[in-house]
């Protein structure tokens, strides 16, 4: 009854999921897209700064410069081939977005407008005011509707379904899903699966710019199903979030000439360095007892209203300051997770039939530190790649699909989790986890602190059966969804910490105050993690 069949199943309907859907559909596959909310509510809507492409509309630029800037910021951990592909395809990606109706801001010469973000040698980010992500996401959604592609809302991923071929090799062939509206488990059979579920910054709880849903569901499900993860320790802290609410103030505010000031009114860092360096400089000030502010007063009201209208509204609402007249109190918070599901050059994961794109995947284009404007680009370029390749995989798929056992186990899980004892409040534990991660596994960390956090995480893992949802209802049980999300985050926490502890050096966003320098001999390599019979394994690979 709750059994559905499709060719390509896509989990996640943010930018990457929708681009993948359009391309899989174009390749002739029957596509079903599932999202735990509604497509236009995805994290992509929050991207403000822009999408990079070396169009040279606002100053001289070249694809090679884009490549070199990206590689430099990645600090030796990017895959040059992937970076070259992404930067080369950027021009076509932006032209395609233009052709489907994205309302980019324009120059006087009737070209797509571009601005400078941190770490870029030229104004390279194409934007639509400070609503770039919102406008791209909504235009993609409209395109998907125009193509008649099926999207099912309020479907939450439980697990990927895997079967074994005659050589005992696993392949992905569907997913078990919680229908949030009914509380029932649904089974989706598919010839290939694309995971595009976003990042895991919400582990940092209130110390993150991200939306509520960035809980790493797809990544946790992927490692459980047999895929590998990589570089999970690389978590980007955005330098400028509002101090009390962690609401993002776009990098374009600094790109346009905004200053960072301490309590004495002194500038203390070049505001346009890559994010890892600026975030650390701010953190050093805060650790020394200073307050830090973003100052855009000198840019003038007209400019702020034209380029940063959202920022002004949010600063007024959350901090009671008007950026036109006041300093904006800020702090760095978790913003983007570079690590994710390990993929090959076809966006294929280690688990055959499972493809990944967007923030949940690690295409190794960001390395140790992502440049602003490269994540919107990534989801267009690799969303397309994943969509095409998953469709091709589906076309040649000729294995059987058996789902009954895994469906039963998902049903039992959803039923059983409501019987957990509830002696311990998981909302409190999430808050606690966010705080200890921010303090000891955040912008700056050391071995002692990390091991203490790992101890706490292992304790929480043991306590999970004593937590659970208090709400036992079937219909729209957000308490249950919150709890399963929490479980996924705890699963990832251990992996992140083990990766952070294993990397005995500092590189990009991974800064160890006890070992402040990079060590190329030992660690110019990717941290690979996987599970064998439920046991976490880790290694470094070139």
């Amino acid at each position, binding site marked *: 009854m709750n059994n559905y069949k499709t060719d390509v199943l896509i989990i996640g309907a943010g930018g990457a999921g929708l681009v993948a859907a359009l391309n899989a559909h174009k390749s002739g596959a029957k596509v079903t897209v599932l999202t735990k909310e509604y497509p236009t509510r995805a994290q992509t809507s*929050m991207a403000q700064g822009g999408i990079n492409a070396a169009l040279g509309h606002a100053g001289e630029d070249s694809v090679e410069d884009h490549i070199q800037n990206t590689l430099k910021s990645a600090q030796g951990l990017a895959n040059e081939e992937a970076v070259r592909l992404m930067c080369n395809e950027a021009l076509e990606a932006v032209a395609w977005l*233009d052709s489907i109706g994205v309302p980019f801001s*324009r120059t006087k010469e*009737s070209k797509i407008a571009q601005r400078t973000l941190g770490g870029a040698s030229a104004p390279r980010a194409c934007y639509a005011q400070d*609503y770039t992500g919102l406008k791209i996401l909504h235009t993609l959604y409209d395109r998907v509707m125009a193509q008649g592609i099926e999207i099912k809302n309020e479907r939450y991923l439980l697990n990927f379904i895997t079967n074994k071929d005659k050589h005992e090799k696993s392949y992905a062939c569907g997913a078990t899903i919680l229908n949030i509206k009914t509380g029932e488990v649904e089974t989706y059979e598919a010839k290939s699966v694309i995971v595009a579920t976003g990042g895991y910054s919400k582990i940092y709880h209130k110390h993150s710019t991200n939306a509520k849903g960035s809980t790493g569901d797809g990544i946790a499900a992927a490692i459980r199903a047999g895929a590998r993860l990589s570089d999970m320790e690389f978590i980007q802290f955005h330098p400028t979030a509002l101090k009390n609410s962690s609401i993002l103030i776009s990098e374009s505010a600094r790109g346009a000439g905004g200053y960072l000031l301490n309590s004495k009114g002194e500038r203390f860092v070049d505001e346009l360095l890559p994010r890892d360096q600026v975030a650390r400089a701010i953190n050093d000030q805060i650790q020394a007892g200073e307050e830090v502010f973003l100052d855009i007063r000198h840019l003038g009201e007209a400019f702020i209203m034209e380029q940063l209208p959202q920022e002004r509204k949010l600063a007024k609402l959350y901090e009671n300051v008007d950026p036109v007249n006041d300093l904006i109190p800020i702090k760095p918070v978790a913003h983007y997770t570079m690590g994710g599901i390990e993929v090959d050059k076809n966006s294929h994961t280690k688990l055959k039939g499972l493809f990944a794109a967007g923030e949940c995947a690690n295409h190794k284009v960001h390395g140790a530190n992502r440049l602003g404007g490269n994540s919107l680009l990534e989801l267009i370029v690799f969303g397309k790649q994943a969509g095409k390749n998953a469709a091709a995989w589906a076309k040649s798929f000729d294995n059987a699909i058996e789902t009954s056992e895994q469906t039963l186990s998902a049903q039992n899980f959803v039923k059983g989790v409501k019987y957990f004892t509830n002696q311990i409040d998981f909302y*409190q534990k999430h808050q606690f986890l966010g705080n200890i991660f921010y303090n000891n596994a955040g912008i700056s960390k050391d071995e002692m602190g990390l091991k203490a956090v790992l101890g706490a995480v292992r304790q929480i893992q043991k306590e999970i059966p004593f937590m659970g*949802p208090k709400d036992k209802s079937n219909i729209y049980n957000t308490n249950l969804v919150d709890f399963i999300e929490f479980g996924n985050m705890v699963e990832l926490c251990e992996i992140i910490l083990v990766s952070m502890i294993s990397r005995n050096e500092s590189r990009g966003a991974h800064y160890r105050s006890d070992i402040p320098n990079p060590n190329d001999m030992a660690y110019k390599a990717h941290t690979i993690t996987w599970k064998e019979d439920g046991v976490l394994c880790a290694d470094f690979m070139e």
Partner: protein
Amino acid sequence: MKIQIKRYTSEPEIKEEVLAYEMELEDPTLLEVLGHIKTTQDSSLSFSSGCRSSVCGSCSMRVNGREVLACAYKVQEGDLVEPLKNVPVIRDLVVDMDKAYSMNVRAKAWLEGSSDVALSPEDEKRNERQSDCIMCGSCYSACPVYAVNGEFLGPFALTRVWRYVSDGREEGEEAKIHNVQSNGVWDCTLCNECTLVCPQDISSKADIEKLRATSAQYGCMDPNFGSFGGGFGFDGSPSF
């Protein structure tokens, strides 16, 4: 601080009630209050939320009868919080947006064919505001026409049609206009409620007026006025 929330559940049977909650928080947004209640007082309270920065459109609801985004509304003593109107309530403050979303499909709110034209900053400004829409559904909740005619395409779908019709790249303008004649541009009463509740300061009413003017250019008239000779909308504003 004390607020009241209208609760609704359908299991085991339908039950509606207004419950009062008390908390100590300093100058909170409504979303912060709801989160506080859910995580510390009543985990069964159901509501949708996402970005908390007014771009995802998840947390639209009503306070004292007025549509707001919970993340952008500062709570006042004694506020009454209710779900949106004119949509099925699933549970508490969570409503089913599927039908409102499907209006975009009926209205064919997308770029039909793309011509290779260079848009100027002025071209871009024509629909900059319309493309700020976050589809929170506040306008459908406030619309008195949609309240009585569930087939009415409604505010955000028509704003979206204007977004594409007014786009210099659109090649299918005429077909788009013909597609929004029935249960569309002429059914609006221009009451302006949608404008008043829009968190993004979009005026669907004004967009509908522009669609009417464009409709007239394509020879589409207000069906309620039969063979009235004029070319433009009947409020006398052939505005673009």
